[in-house]
């Protein structure tokens, strides 16, 4: 073999373990559940191999699944908007601050490292019947009996915002850092007020970061099932809870496959639209 040929082969040798793992543990399994979703779970618990449309008919036409899907998208959308409203000014402050940006950013990233389950359950300490809020209100004499503030849609959104906010801040920060501050100065010197130059120069230039953060918040928020279990009430199930229910509790794996693929189709479409207009590079910047 020539030196060139060996040289050309080398990267593929280095890549093959990782590509092999992704193929065998992600792409083949995804293709498998697509096939599996057309099988049928019989009353005996065995799978009937074949091409049955029952699972898909149930997943797509049952109002129960549809309502929960819509509710899931609604919760994810509200979470994303709240993250943007809270996160954008914070990212702006860090990017334009004269202090130590690295420390400010690191501080906001710290909760990102703190266990997700701990952060989720920590709200029980704050809002539960014997939590900080109730305790404070009772001490102040505002209320005489503790109020149950937990286990509703609002607390699910609260938990999700707490979990996802760092993703938003990081992405917006990265794009704000990439903007030449001279542009803002130029707008100001041409007579724009600070607010005008922000609205017409800085904000449009930072939209890719906002979109990347928004995509992450939405996709991660819509795919969660732990937060609704810990912080939601009995009627606050999200779509991933249905998947968990079908796979782990009911052991109806073909139906669970169809539901998983439905979720993948909805969220995957968003990722594809994002990729089409903004490209993956922006997303990688925020993650890396």
């Amino acid at each position, binding site marked *: 073999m020539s030196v060139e040929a060996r040289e050309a082969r*080398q990267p593929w040798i*280095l890549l093959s*373990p990782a590509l092999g793992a992704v193929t065998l543990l992600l792409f083949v399994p995804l293709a498998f559940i697509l096939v599996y979703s057309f099988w049928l779970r019989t009353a005996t618990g065995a799978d009937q191999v074949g091409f049955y449309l029952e699972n898909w008919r149930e997943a797509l036409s049952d109002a129960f699944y549809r309502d929960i899907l819509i509710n899931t998208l609604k919760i994810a959308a509200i979470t994303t908007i709240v993250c943007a409203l809270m996160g954008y000014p914070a990212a702006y402050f860090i990017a334009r601050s004269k202090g130590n940006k690295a420390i400010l950013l690191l501080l906001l990233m710290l909760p990102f490292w703190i266990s997700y389950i701990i952060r989720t359950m920590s709200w029980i300490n704050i809002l539960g019947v014997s939590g900080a809020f109730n305790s404070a209100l009772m*001490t102040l004499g505002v209320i005489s009996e503790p109020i149950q503030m937990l286990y509703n849609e609002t607390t699910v959104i609260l938990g999700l915002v707490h979990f996802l*906010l760092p993703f938003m801040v990081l992405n917006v920060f990265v794009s704000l850092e990439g903007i030449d501050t001279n542009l803002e100065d130029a707008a100001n010197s041409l007579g724009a007020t600070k607010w005008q130059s922000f609205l017409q120069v800085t904000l449009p230039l930072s939209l890719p970061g906002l979109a990347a953060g928004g995509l992450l918040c939405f996709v991660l928020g819509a795919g969660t099932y732990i937060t609704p279990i810990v912080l939601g009430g009995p009627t606050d199930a999200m779509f991933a809870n249905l998947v968990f229910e079908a796979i782990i509790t009911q052991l109806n794996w073909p139906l669970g496959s169809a539901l*998983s693929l439905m979720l993948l189709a909805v969220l995957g479409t968003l990722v594809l639209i994002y990729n089409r207009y903004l490209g993956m590079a922006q997303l990688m910047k925020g993650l890396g």
Partner: protein
Amino acid sequence: MGWNLIRTWTLLVYLFMFLPVAVVVLLSFNASQFGSFPMTGFSLRWFIELSQNEAILRAFRTSIVLGLMTATISTTLGVLASLALVRYRVPGANVISTLLIAPILVPEVVLAVALLLFLNFMSINKSFTLLLAGHVIFTLPFVILVVQARLVSIRRDVEEAAMSLGASPRQTFFQITLPLMLPAVLAGALFAFTISFDDITGTLFWKPGGVETVPTQIFAMLRNSISPEINALGTVMILLTVGLPLLGLAIARSASTKRGS
């Protein structure tokens, strides 16, 4: 005026992020029997009870073994792939990158279901192997992103200098490239360990009955009632998951200053 408003807003955002976590730490030292407000005094009793709780200790061992194995495997795969992507002109590099990142673009629930059902079909039941496979595939993209970002900054001319001074490619790799890469490798491994240690979404699908990791153990304990033991466990987890990355950062930093001097 506007700037002060933004400053106050940011302060409130930081407060929002840290208050719940601070309360966990505060309550874990609470002497009160129910571990809730009002605080009745300072006590380490919940940490002592924690250290005697067999189930939690077992969960810790499982999580640590799983995390170490995940970190070893996915860092190895990730470093090799990153080397190929950064150091060589690979045709279709963009497509390959996207394929390797795909596990984080797919919702974790879907990844969990697909892997569980497929490996079950291949006669690999819920087991430690399945759990490990899941954690590897889920952490791999993060390792690749972190390692690639660091690798780009290693200058090629140092290697070329070594080779022009007569070092063989093998010598160059082990004596020049690998030491320079070490901070990136460590950062990737720590990242993988932390993500594996913290994972619950996939783990609940993959873990065999009776096996618990720390997050699933906490999740199971939450179903009863929130006990002060959970807060103590939370405090330990916070120290671990915050301490480890900071340690990693410190290692990376000291390695780079040594190199610079």
